Structures are given as C-alpha cells and as structure tokens.
C-alpha cells in the first residue's frame, strides 16, 4: 500500500480507473519543459517562444490523430470530454438547424451528453433516447428505426463509463453513413483501451479525454471529420483559434501531455489489454469462487479489459464501500449520488432498483498489480460475508423468503 506524505496513513488501493487515471510519469516528463523554459504562447507567430510551443502543440495533434486513424488537421483541443461532447452535439445541431432538427442518443450515455441533449430540447430540437438491451448494448434495429429525414446526428458512446460495455461502433457508423446522418461518439473511456479507426467506423466526430488515458486533467480533444466535411458552431468565441471552432489560448503543457498519453497508449494498448484482461478475469473468478450471489452487470465479453461492475446481492453498495475502505472503488448505489436515485445506467439494463443499490464498479489499469487484486478480492469476500451477516434481506433469502412477496413501504 502507498503512503501519503501528509499523515503517513496507508492510502487505499486505487481501483477506480474509470473515474480517472494517474498521469503516466512519461507524460509528466514530456509536459514539464512547457511550464518553464518553453512557456511561449503557441499562437505567437513572431518569435521563437511561440514557434517552439506551436511545434509542440502540432506534434501532439498528430499523436492524437494517429491513435484514431485521423489527420492532425481534424483534431480540436478542448478542456476535456465534457466540452468536446458539448461542442460536438450543440455545434452540429445549431449549425445545421435550418435543415434538420432531430438527434438520436442512448439512455446510458454520460450525463454531459444527456444534459446537452436536454438543453437542446429546450431550444426546440427533437431528441430520441434509445433504450439498451439487458447487456447494455444498443439494438441496431431500434437505431435504424429511430432515424428520420430530419435526423442530423447520432451520438453513441463507444465504452460506457459505469459498466464498460463496448457498443458496435462500425455497425452504428455504417448505418449512419448510409442514411447521411453524422455519427458522434464519446470515446472518453475508449481511446487507448480499444482499437478505434474513424474511417473504418465511419465516425464523424469523436470526443477524447486526457485524464482517462494517463494524461493530465483539464484537456481533451474533439475529432471533427474534414472529408466529407462536418461543420460545428463554435460554443466559445474569441480569437478564432482551432480553426474558429474553439477560441482560447491553447494550454501547451496539457496538449503535449494528451499527445504523449496517446502515443504511449497506441504503442502499449495491445499488451496492456491482454494483461488487464487476465488480471480482471482472475480477480472476478476469485471473488465469485469465494462468494455466492454476485452478478456481473453489462455484457460479459463486449467490455473493456479494465472494468468490472458487480452486484453483491443483499449488501448495499455504499455500506460496502465503507466496509472496504482499503479500496478506492465506486458504487451505483443511491447513497453515492445527491439525488438518492440508484444508477440510471444500471436501471436502463432492466436491473431492479434493489440490485442497482448493491453494485460496485471495479476499475483496473496500467499501474494495478496482481497482489493488489488478490488482496482486494479476499477483502471483498470477507467484508461482503460480514455485511450479509447483518443484512435482513440475506437472512430472508437464506430462509427461502421471496423479498418481492413482502409489502415494502417505499420511502
């Protein structure tokens, strides 16, 4: 276990790689010169300080393009995937609103996509929210049926942040292209985790995040296709940087960090995916061998290597997180959200609210070790067993009482 310098308390094992990732030290090394000696404004055209910063930013643009099969000219820097999603969806909707006004998205999208769509509804756009199947995947026939003459954009995330399932990108892209509809995808959780190719998958716009791929927080990118050209209305106005799509001085160190993170991911993705898949499956087996009534949420195969979303029946998720405070994980239980509603993603799978309350998301990544996962699995087995020993629901289940047969007073 690591120790924090502040109080020398042991720090929990980090198993929340879908929330964020630590910066790779190689990324930090690449960034450092651009804070100090190479501090120039990349938009300064008249001296060396500007030129070297610009060169660094343009190199990063190429590194980002390379991991998704795009040209550097198609990469727009943003502050992160939330901004990229806003720019893509609002930008396309508002630019083409004279011709088309309908957008199709999915109920399990990230809040920043759903909230952007809600905002567009207020502006008069029509939004279709597609359901997902029990495994978390989009039904392609439902997608086809949802497309209309007025549909301008389909926005479907590649990898879900809670359950890690991978949507059929190439199939969705083909459907969109055949109907002349732009295809935007939130790839915050996908870049560097699964192979992506904007041409093979017919992706027109792609949101990218820095801090999900061992890069810095505060930077992201939006891929915007040039051929055939996709237009977006700028959401931030100013000096016209990023070909007018996103004004504001670029944060050179952050751009460099994102570029370096992409380059590392591109080189190491295949090996990393293999290693994480083995580790994850071993962990999953150890937990389910040691505990009955543990259920995997989301498709078992079509998921990223670093994600497990498990429901530990009869044990409430937040209570469980408190019981495994040696681990930094997250839960889909109500108590972890301000709204007191359980995860809308898990509910969208058709999961009963009581099962959604018992879920834990375990996210592993580049710096996770076998020893950490063995410890984590054994701890989960021990603590879930303890919490079940004081769960009235577990007692009822052991006595063969059907919990659904009881008249509960919902509060």
């Amino acid at each position: 276990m690591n120790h924090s310098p502040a109080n020398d308390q042991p720090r929990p094992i980090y198993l929340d790689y879908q929330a964020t990732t630590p910066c790779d030290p190689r990324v930090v090394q690449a960034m450092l010169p651009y804070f100090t000696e190479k501090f120039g404004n990349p938009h300064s055209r008249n001296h060396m300080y500007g030129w070297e910063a610009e060169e660094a930013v343009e190199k990063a643009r190429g590194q980002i393009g390379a991991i998704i099969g795009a040209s550097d000219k198609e990469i727009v820097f943003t502050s992160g995937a939330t901004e990229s999603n806003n720019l893509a969806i609002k930008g396309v909707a508002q630019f083409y609103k004279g011709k088309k006004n309908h957008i199709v998205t999915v109920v399990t999208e990230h809040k920043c996509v759903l909230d952007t769509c809600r905002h567009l509804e207020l502006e008069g756009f029509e939004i279709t929210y597609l359901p997902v199947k029990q495994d978390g995947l989009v039904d392609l026939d439902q997608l086809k049926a949802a497309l209309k003459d007025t549909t301008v954009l389909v926005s479907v995330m590649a990898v879900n942040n809670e359950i890690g399932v991978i949507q059929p990108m190439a199939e969705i892209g083909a459907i969109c292209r055949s109907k002349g509809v732009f295809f935007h995808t939130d790839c915050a959780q996908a870049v560097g985790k699964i192979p992506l190719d904007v041409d093979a998958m017919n992706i027109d716009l792609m949101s990218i995040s820095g801090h999900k791929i061992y890069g810095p927080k505060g930077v992201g990118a939006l891929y915007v296709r040039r051929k055939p050209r996709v237009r977006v209305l700028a959401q931030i106005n100013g000096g016209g940087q990023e070909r007018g799509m996103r004004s504001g001085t670029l944060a050179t160190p952050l751009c460099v960090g994102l570029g370096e993170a992409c380059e590392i991911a591109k080189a190491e993705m295949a090996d990393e995916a293999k290693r994480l898949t083995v580790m994850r499956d071993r962990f999953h087996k150890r937990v389910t061998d040691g505990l009955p009534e543990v259920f995997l949420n989301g498709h078992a195969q079509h998921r990223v290597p670093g994600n497990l979303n498990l429901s530990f029946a009869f044990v409430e998720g937040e209570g469980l997180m408190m019981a495994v405070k040696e681990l930094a994980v997250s839960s889909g239980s109500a108590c972890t959200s301000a709204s007191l509603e359980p995860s809308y993603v898990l509910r969208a799978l058709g999961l009963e609210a009581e099962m959604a309350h018992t879920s834990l998301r375990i996210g592993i990544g580049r710096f996770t070790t076998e020893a950490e996962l063995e410890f984590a699995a054994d701890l989960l087995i021990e603590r879930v067993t303890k919490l079940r020993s004081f769960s009235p629901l577990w007692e009822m289940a052991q006595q063969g009482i059907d919990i659904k047969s009881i008249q509960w007073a919902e509060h």
Partner: protein
Amino acid sequence: MSYSDKVIDHFENPRNVGSLNKDDTHVGTGLVGAPACGDVMRLQIQVSPEGIIEDAKFKTFGCGSAIASSSLVTEWVKGKTLDEAAAIKNTHIAEHLALPPVKIHCSVLAEDAIKAAISDYKTKHNPSKDGEAAE
C-alpha cells in the same frame, strides 16, 4: 463524504446484531424501509413483564449511516419503557451520529423502526389489558 467517528465506530463494531424469535409474545419486530430504496432495517425488542425493553437486536441492509443508526438505537432502547423508547426522535439520532443532511433519512428510518417494533409488540397483546403481559 467523510463519516463521523461515531458512525464509523457503530459501523465497524455494530452493537446487538442478530435476531430474536419474532413469534415470541415478548418480542416486537419492526421491519421498515424498502430494498428498492437502498435501506431496510429490522429492529426487534424483547419486553419484560414489567414493560421494560430488556433486549434489542437489529439487522440492516443499507449504507454506513443506516447501519450505525440502527446499531445506536438498539443501545438506546435497552432498559427503557415502551413510552420512553417511543419518545426517541430521529433528530436525537442524527445529532448524536453527526449525520449530514443527505443521511437524515437514515435516522428517520431508525425512529420508524422503533415505533414499528413497539406497535408490533402491542398488537400481540390485548389492548384492553394495557400494561399487562398477556401470556
């Protein structure tokens, strides 16, 4: 969110976890909450012929604050008369455990559990023989 020391103490060392025989006439059982809402509390009290709560047990499905609230009330109701136990308010529980606003519902549930257990005990006894233990 961080938890108060008292919540952590009750959560890690819960008092009076367990079950009493719900069919025993001396035992009152309160089962409140709902699995769909993420918390279910079962509080059981064992009442002496003199009307004193001499034992209390709980089992709770819920977050740390819910488990701590139910653990705490099992300590508080022991040795009290039914009327004294019924006077325990959620605000006392919330204050003692320093629950944040988002967790107040846990203390409300604990108060409801006491009232439900007392009510169950009373319905097992003939209301006309109030105060006497009906055997």
